[in-house]
């Protein structure tokens, strides 16, 4: 585990700490931590407020007074020569002592942090800020990365692991991700969920694995704003998608059912647009034999009146291939009753408008298959859609 964390940390070090969490600083200073640490000066000798600091907004950079203990600074003598550096420009490069020195700006990190608690637990400065003995001026680079925090804040045993322990939260309890400096997004260090431009299309493997993890930053209504079948997200459904969508849908190349149910969303629209044949909307009526064929020749063997068409079961265009390969494509246009028109068991009363019945649609060795017996054991009703209850073939696979 430690090795894994180290690798994670190394992986993240390359990119530096987040510019959103630690905004860019302005540090017109010259300072050598390496030099001062070589003289065995303790961190809190200069950073006197750090051990007692309880909030991330506390300004912990030493003021001039801290330096004055060793450096005989005299503002009246900006170019003073002394054994220990005392000139103004020794620390403020280019400043000649007139007016105020160039301003140091260290924006408040967008975090909660309590130095006092960490110090009281015996955590040394370098554990979070790294080895300062080789560092000259400390910058954002010496701020800890999230992986460093997670070396303790994991599992809740060593230290609390809730996001809100460190991150600022929205009223809903989710992590605040929008800041003036940009948007906070996962690096991928925890779950491989780096929000790259393609993540919107690839996020299912993370989201389906652990819904709660995503909910640390996203409210559920955010998910539903896309997965609702109302407004097309343009990166999924580009221009003229209505014309193009059949290719995607038949191939199932995007998971249509994540937003659209086939039987309650797709069928209605396809019927309305006339691309699906409505064999009997409502109660039995005369069938509408459509002139347009959305399926190729050879798709079915007979029409509903029993007259042979050009297709045979051996026809390469026969619909059985498509239904068995990818029934979803069928279910996007057809209701179950379309199948029943021809596949209802011979023992059933024929539908008023068709002479065809009893074409066996079951896959090979259906009766002997575990799928048949399992389905029957769980829901016999489905059998009685095609078979009459007196049809002893209906439950033939029942143990």
């Amino acid at each position: 585990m430690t090795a894994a964390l180290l690798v994670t940390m190394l992986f993240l070090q390359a990119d530096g700490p987040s510019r959103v969490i630690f905004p860019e600083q302005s540090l017109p200073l010259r300072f050598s931590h390496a030099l001062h640490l070589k003289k065995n000066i303790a961190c809190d000798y200069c950073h006197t407020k750090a051990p007692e600091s309880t909030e991330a907004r506390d300004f912990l950079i030493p003021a001039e007074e801290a330096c004055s203990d060793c450096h005989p600074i005299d503002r009246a003598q900006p170019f003073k020569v002394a054994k220990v550096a005392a000139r103004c420009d020794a620390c403020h490069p280019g400043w000649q002592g007139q007016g105020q020195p160039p301003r140091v700006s260290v924006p408040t990190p967008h975090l909660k942090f309590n130095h006092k608690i960490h110090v009281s637990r015996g955590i040394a400065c370098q554990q979070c800020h790294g080895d300062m003995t080789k560092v000259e001026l400390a910058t954002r680079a010496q701020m800890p990365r999230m992986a460093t925090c997670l070396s303790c804040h994991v599992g809740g045993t060593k230290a609390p692991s809730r996001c809100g322990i460190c991150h600022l939260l929205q009223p809903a309890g989710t992590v605040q991700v929008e800041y003036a400096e940009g948007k906070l997004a996962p690096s991928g260090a925890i779950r491989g969920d780096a929000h790259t431009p393609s993540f919107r299309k690839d996020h299912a493997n993370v989201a389906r694995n652990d819904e709660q993890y995503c909910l640390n930053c996203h409210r559920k209504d955010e998910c539903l704003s896309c997965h609702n079948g109302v407004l097309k997200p343009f990166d999924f459904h580009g221009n003229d998608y209505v014309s193009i969508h059949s290719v995607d849908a038949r191939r199932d190349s995007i998971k249509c059912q994540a937003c659209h149910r086939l039987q309650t969303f797709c069928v209605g629209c396809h019927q309305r647009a006339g691309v699906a044949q409505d064999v009997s909307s409502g109660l039995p009526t005369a069938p509408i034999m459509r002139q347009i064929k959305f399926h190729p020749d050879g798709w079915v063997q007979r029409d509903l009146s029993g007259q042979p068409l050009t297709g045979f079961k051996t026809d390469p265009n026969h619909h059985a291939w498509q239904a068995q390969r990818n029934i979803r494509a069928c279910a996007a246009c057809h209701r179950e009753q379309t199948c029943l028109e021809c596949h209802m068991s011979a023992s059933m009363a024929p539908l008023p408008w068709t002479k065809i019945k009893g074409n066996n649609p079951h896959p090979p060795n259906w009766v002997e298959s575990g799928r048949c017996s399992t389905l029957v054991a769980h829901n016999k009703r489905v059998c009685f859609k095609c078979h009459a209850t007196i049809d002893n073939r209906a439950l033939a696979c029942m143990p």
Partner: protein
Amino acid sequence: MFFAPLAAASIARAADFEVEAETIGQGYQLRQCDDAGRCDTLLDRRRLTQYLNLHAFRILPDDWTGPRHDRNHLYFTSSLRFDTDFGNYLNAPASGRIPELPRAQSADEFQLLYAVLGGVDMFGFLDFQLGRQIVFDLMDFYSFDGLDVKVRLPWWVALEAWSGLEVRDEAPIASPIYELDGTSRGSRDAATCLRLAVGRPGDPCPDQHDMIAPTFGFAFESWGIQIFHGRLAYRRTFSDTAGRTAGDGLPPQGFNEEKLSYTLNANLGSFRPFGGLRYNLMLGALDQIEGGVKLGFAAGHSVLGEYIYNAPSFDGDSIFNVFAVFAYNDLRLTYTTPELGDGLRMWASGFVRFFNDSTADVHALPACSPMPCTPANPPDNRTATPATDSEAVGVTAGGRYKLSGRGHVRADAYYDNGFGGLRVGGDVSGRHQVVLDKLDLEGRLTLIHFEPDLQKQNGFEATSFGAQAGALYTMTQGVRLHLLVEENNNRYYNYQLRAIALLDLTFLR
């Protein structure tokens, strides 16, 4: 004096209330084909959708269960949707009303998507949700009315259990968007109703969907382990048989679904494997397998490799479960670069998908038309292979360039072919914030050629050019107006217009 405790309580509580009202107006045209085979009519679909979301967070005082100021303990969240159509899209066709389309000016148009009273980290270990809720996991998107309780035990294990009623279209002010798929209102006629099966076609047809569908499940889940997350979950949904009478041979009850799933996600530094299995107990088969690994390399390069096995499965009442024989297998690979230079990021992906066509097996059982088989009517054994491809392959490549933090330009090119048809094209899109925090402009150009594989005889292939332009105007904090116009041209349309207007109001107190 009686009211004193209440007054005190109201002072201590600092609930945050949020009201969101989102109005979406869409107008677009759909090509309609008539019974004579002409497809030159354009239907006007004008759709109005109104969301009203109410949320109350941190209902209990922060220190109710201890000094944990980072998490709200008790909350209420809800979303009500009003969705209606105008235009001739809803006009009944000559063959009668289409049952799957909502009736205009009916109660169908009001849908309570969710309404949950929930608790998070109650007493430091308990989460719960009570009400209409939506769940998404490896099993599915799913909605139910009921109670979900999760208890985090020490030792990195959490137990979750839930119970309630599946939300179906027929439930009060419900939406069908997350109901089990495979059956529809349109199937509920004499052809499929159980009355016909027992030989009483004249009886009123009972609607199986009118029956309540109790659902329950449980899950074991790891928690708090940084390098690993696993979840084992089980769910069962069942319903009584509608209209059953003594001696009619119908079962008293049937399962609508019974599934067991296991998901796993590990973080081993730059090597991050993930996977999931779903076993459909109702079909006695694995119907979903996912596995993959994400590799992170130095300087931010990443590679994602995935394998997906997917076998269609439906509501236990659907006969599609019987027809669906084969699964498909899918392999995909995605490569993403780190941010190059001043904000350029590129990616490329490819997939290959195999649709099973074990032609030797299809209809190996005697298949005669009509049944039964006789010497004069011999079985028809399949010898041919299907006309359409059984594989599909595709590649996509793209890049996004950030425009100095105030927008981006993105380009995508794609080619895929095989089962389903051909699709080749590309698009360029962009967004730019022209007035800081006030006004964004966006646009998109698409050129795409497509050839659906099953409609070759209809000549449905076309090359389509589409242009889109939009603006997002933030009037003031919490008030946003988004306008979008899309214009498409292909050999079917001289122009096909789509317009969308979205007004989003959010009030937080």
